[in-house]
């Protein structure tokens, strides 16, 4: 195969959603959750950014490694539609998930890995605020 055809790039698309959530473990009392999560145990919200990274080799004719329109549609349909202007606790893909940034990154990874072509997904990043950024690349220990 031509070397030109095997050059693997990673493409990252940045999405945005706004959502409400609160951090609470269902097995704990309200007082214990307040002690554990502090102000995050109260219902509040964020302007989130979601970064989805997929890998591919640019097509020799079109130059596209990724069908961006399909990626956008997949992310919208499987993730954004469930979380944008919703309570995260109500989203079916987040059932049983404590909606920390780490928890969201992991849950979105599971959803997107199923929805995207095999092996395409490389990383999911959830940025909760300008100061907090959470990444998951599928690692398990």
């Amino acid at each position, binding site marked *: 195969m031509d070397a*030109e055809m095997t*050059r*693997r*790039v*990673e*493409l*990252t*698309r*940045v*999405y945005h959603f706004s959502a409400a959530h609160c951090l609470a473990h269902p097995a704990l009392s309200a007082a214990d959750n307040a002690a554990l999560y502090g102000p995050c145990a109260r219902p509040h919200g964020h302007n989130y950014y979601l970064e989805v990274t997929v890998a*591919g080799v*640019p097509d*020799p*004719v*079109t*130059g*596209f*490694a*990724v069908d*961006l329109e399909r990626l956008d549609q997949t992310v919208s349909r499987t993730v954004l539609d469930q979380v944008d202007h919703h309570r995260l606790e109500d989203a079916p893909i987040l059932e049983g998930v404590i909606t920390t940034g780490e928890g969201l990154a992991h849950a979105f990874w599971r959803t997107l890995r199923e929805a995207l072509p095999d092996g395409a997904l490389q990383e999911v990043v959830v940025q909760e605020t300008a100061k907090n950024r959470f990444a998951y690349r599928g690692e398990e220990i």
Partner: protein
Amino acid sequence: MTVQASTTRRFAFSAGHRYHVARWSADENARAFGRLTVPHGHNYTLDVTVRGPIDPQTGMVIDLGELKAIVNATVIERFDHADLNADALFRERIPTTENIAIAVWELLAPKLGPDRLARVRVWEDPTLFVDYDGR
């Protein structure tokens, strides 16, 4: 003990392009690329990452002045306010963000050394970037 670290410097260039396959009809191009087949432009951001040992004398992985001079002379002067489709680098390939990242790597690797150049990241706009690391 040699300590390895990386340095990333950000650059910017504004360039025009269109997605267009010469041997295709206008209809075929429109079907494949939609509005992107019409000439348009972007304010691109380029992040160049260099990896290497921290020089015990200077405390630097690379002199940022040297990095700036190389990237400006090799990439920015070539692409800024240019029509990417007219560049010889894109005669055989469409200047998608993917191919721009690969082309920037091809321009910089001989100047910086493929072992020192760690990654090229090209942002087409704040919602889309492509990384290429020479693989």
